[in-house]
């Protein structure tokens, strides 16, 4: 039976109450308690720094050459906080409510409320660290609005908010490294969890430079390894982003929750060919001014500029007159796919739609003419003025687009297509962020806890830092208070020996196969299965096929993959092989979860569960639960359900017509 450990009492006093009653560890005892942190993104770096400050002995691991590289760095838009600096009616409750609703009522209320409560502290902490947020002329912080909300609560640093927040957490982490409280292991990859008497007691990590396997003891282990979007091969994730740490936890008894909840972002630069290695996001803010369209004629090969106005289909404006181009991410993504699948796609791949700024340029141009009280202005002059305004608003995005595609988006419409961007699912955790394995915790995108079936913009950064700075320091202490009598376990303990042997055997197995296909070959194949059958739209038949195809692909992988080089050297192909092996298992579980969830909610669209006019239909009666999957051997999983109880937010069906 899953125990989510939600404290009793009214929603808005649960966290206060918890903090007032959880166990504490005295400073002398903290010095002998060791904590392992896997991953150094916003969640991992903030956790490692905060726990180091408290006096615990922390070891932090990242596979990159420096903790500053973690993929949190790529977040563009901003971070939400219920500061109400704009006096526009924001509050902790509203942030909580927007997040639960935005998640399509599949998140746990108590966790989300706590997130909203600590959101303000995050901004305070970051400013104190020297994070250069955008400011107004009076010197105070600036805010902007973001999707899914009616208030201005998003703090930002141009289009580089993730970078600035991560560098803040990184500097706090490096300060603890300098003070000797944290030991940093760069270019190390966690390859297994070590369990002793049912508790997480350490990890096996591979030194990626020399290939040596290392045993590390910890009284507790924190998995902060991010999301698993790369199961699709093509995503906006970094090339190295992977599920390995979380998956090893799953194989050691931690349940994996809601794996099928993935977020597809509607505005990304489309795939240009088979060589494509990753996809790049174009900020959602572009939909404020861009109009999305495809030709009315199928397989139209004319250039965009040659297609007259009456032969263009502004399908979002047609289907959703009330919201138009500003429908939520999931709706916009599915509509683009529908048009492309029906043969109306544009560009050489036909897997793209236009995002057109011509109308906005003309509109802004006319506004400028009015503002400047100009007379007898030519069309060219209006366009020129309009382009200047658009450049001021979106210049950096237009430049990025031009760099990647070689096209000038001021002259020709952008081509965009949806891409996998974030994963809401992850390791199941209770209120304390503890997994089902005692002593094993999960923070940030790696856990499932706060975003339900769909994440709102500017909430990922908030959750990563909330977990690391303000939640885990309390909750892990509550566990470690009972561990003060546990001496550090020597790493020649049989459990460490056995775990290391298992890892070594797997590595040797990779080299022994000596097959004919590269790791990427299998990764791309897996990605295609996932995208076609467990992507933006899913149905029973497709998911069943996908499961069989993934099983077959996995068997082929283990008999025909070629891993070059040696185990005892820097070997990126070996690293990839291990990650893809885990994706090949996770992919199957995602399909299984999607098959089980016979409703549409948030990012999960089951074709069998839609309204008459093709919109997503949730089924609260049968599916208002967290699906937590227990690993029972390869390809075998047992489903555990955590019912979701909504005391404050009444579930309603979304409509954007």
């Amino acid at each position: 039976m899953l125990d989510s450990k939600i404290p009793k009492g009214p929603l808005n006093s649960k966290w206060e109450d918890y903090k007032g009653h959880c166990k504490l560890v005295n400073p002398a005892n903290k010095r002998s308690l060791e904590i392992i942190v896997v991953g150094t993104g916003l969640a991992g770096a903030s956790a490692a720094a905060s726990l180091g400050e408290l006096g615990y002995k922390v070891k932090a691991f990242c596979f990159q050459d420096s903790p500053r590289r973690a993929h949190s760095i790529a977040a563009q838009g901003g971070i939400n906080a219920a500061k109400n600096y704009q006096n526009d009616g924001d509050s902790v409750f509203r942030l909580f409510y927007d997040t639960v609703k935005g998640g399509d009522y599949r998140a746990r209320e108590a966790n989300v409320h706590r997130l909203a409560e600590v959101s303000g502290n995050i901004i305070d902490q970051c400013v104190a660290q020297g994070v250069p947020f955008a400011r107004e002329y009076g010197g105070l912080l600036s805010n902007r609005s973001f999707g899914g909300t009616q208030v201005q609560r998003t703090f930002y640093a141009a289009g580089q908010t993730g970078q600035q927040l991560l560098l803040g957490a990184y500097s706090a982490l490096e300060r603890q490294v300098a003070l000797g409280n944290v030991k940093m292991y760069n270019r190390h990859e966690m390859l297994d969890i070590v369990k002793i008497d049912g508790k997480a007691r350490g990890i096996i990590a591979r030194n990626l430079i020399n290939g040596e396997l290392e045993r590390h003891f910890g009284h507790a282990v924190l998995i902060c390894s991010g999301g698993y979007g790369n199961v699709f091969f093509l995503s906006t994730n970094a090339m190295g982003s992977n599920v390995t740490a979380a998956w090893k936890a799953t194989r050691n008894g931690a349940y994996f929750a809601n794996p099928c909840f993935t977020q597809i972002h509607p505005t990304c630069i489309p795939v240009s060919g088979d060589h494509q290695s990753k996809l790049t996001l174009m900020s959602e803010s572009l939909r404020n001014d861009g109009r999305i369209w495809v030709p009315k004629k199928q397989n139209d090969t004319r250039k965009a500029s040659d297609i007259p106005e009456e032969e263009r289909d502004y399908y979002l404006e047609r289907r959703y007159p009330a919201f138009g181009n500003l429908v939520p991410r999931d709706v916009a993504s599915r509509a683009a796919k529908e048009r492309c699948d029906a043969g109306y796609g544009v560009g050489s791949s036909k897997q793209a739609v236009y995002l057109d700024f011509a109308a906005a340029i003309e509109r802004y141009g006319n506004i400028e003419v009015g503002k400047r009280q100009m007379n007898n202005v030519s069309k060219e002059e209006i366009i020129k003025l309009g382009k200047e305004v658009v450049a001021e608003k979106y210049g950096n995005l237009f430049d990025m687009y031009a760099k990647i595609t070689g096209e000038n988006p001021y002259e020709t419409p952008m081509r965009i297509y949806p891409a996998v961007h974030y994963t809401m699912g992850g390791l199941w955790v209770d209120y304390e962020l503890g997994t089902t394995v005692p002593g094993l915790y999960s923070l940030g995108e790696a856990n499932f806890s706060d975003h339900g079936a769909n994440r709102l913009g500017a909430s990922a950064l908030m959750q990563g830092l909330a977990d690391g700075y303000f939640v885990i320091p309390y909750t892990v202490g509550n566990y470690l208070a009972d561990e003060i009598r546990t001496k550090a376990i020597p790493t020649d303990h049989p459990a460490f020996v056995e775990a290391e042997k298992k890892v070594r055997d797997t590595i040797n197995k990779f080299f022994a196969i000596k097959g004919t296909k590269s790791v990427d070959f299998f990764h791309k194949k897996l990605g295609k299965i996932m995208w076609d059958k467990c992507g933006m739209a899913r149905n029973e038949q497709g998911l069943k096929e996908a499961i069989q195809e993934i099983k077959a692909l996995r068997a082929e992988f283990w008999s025909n993959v070629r891993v070059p080089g040696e185990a005892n050297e820097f070997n990126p192909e070996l690293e990839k092989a291990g990650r893809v092996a885990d994706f090949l298992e996770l992919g199957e579980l995602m399909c299984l979860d999607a098959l089980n969830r016979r409703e549409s909610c948030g990012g999960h669209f089951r074709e069998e569960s839609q309204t008459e006019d093709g919109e997503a239909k949730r089924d609260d009666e049968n599916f208002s639960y967290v699906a937590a999957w227990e690993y029972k051997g390869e390809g075998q999983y047992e489903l555990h359900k955590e019912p979701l109880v909504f005391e404050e937010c009444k579930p309603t069906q979304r409509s954007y017509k």
Partner: protein
Amino acid sequence: MEHYNMNLTLKVWRQKNKNDQGRFETLQAKNISSEMSFLEMFDVVNEELINEGKDPIAFDHDCREGICGMCSMHINGRAHGPWDGTTTCQLHMRAFKDGDTITVEPWRAGAFPVVKDLTVDRSAFDRIIEAGGYISVNTGNAQDANCIPVDKAKADLAFAAAACIGCGACVAACKNSSAMLFVSAKVSQLALLPQGHPEKHSRALNMVAQMDKEGFGSCTNTGACEAECPKEISLTNIARLNREFIGAGFSSEK
């Protein structure tokens, strides 16, 4: 934009590990699309090498959208290649034409030892940050964020300096292998903000001392770092670092 395919000759630095002497290897990259990124061209070459049973070229990369700072190739004598203000991962193949020969080296600097092929060890940058690239504020110490108003002009300058991605191109581009642009970007960011004032003297002194200890060279104001920086970090940060450093030297009570 018309797309085209090209055949290229690559001269790539191959070095098994830091103890190996290393050498250039000449490889052919065939049928490369002008739409590919520079790293995708390397993916294609590596795929070929793997299929031929050879060792692929090791190179650092991660986000492939120009922000993580991991990619680090010296291309035809320029850090991150021919485009200004661009990381290697954002450089695209339309910068080249059919028949070109492209020389690709790792960052060359004593303080950045080669790990393998085009991959170098930049942990010296982490140690410089450890020496003082932070504000000493524990979690929970902070006051309300709007209690510290910051002059917008200074906040903008601090942000521009903070845009540094720590890739090391400045060091690779510098004839002295100096890390002054990197160090000055962090020192400037924190010196420009009121939050950074209490530690500004010790920060400048300690970070520069660590930079010297790591074996980076001195600055002779050539400006190659600024010219090659993918984030276009300004040389004026180095001037600010020098002011901070000298000021710290005069006012230090130690």
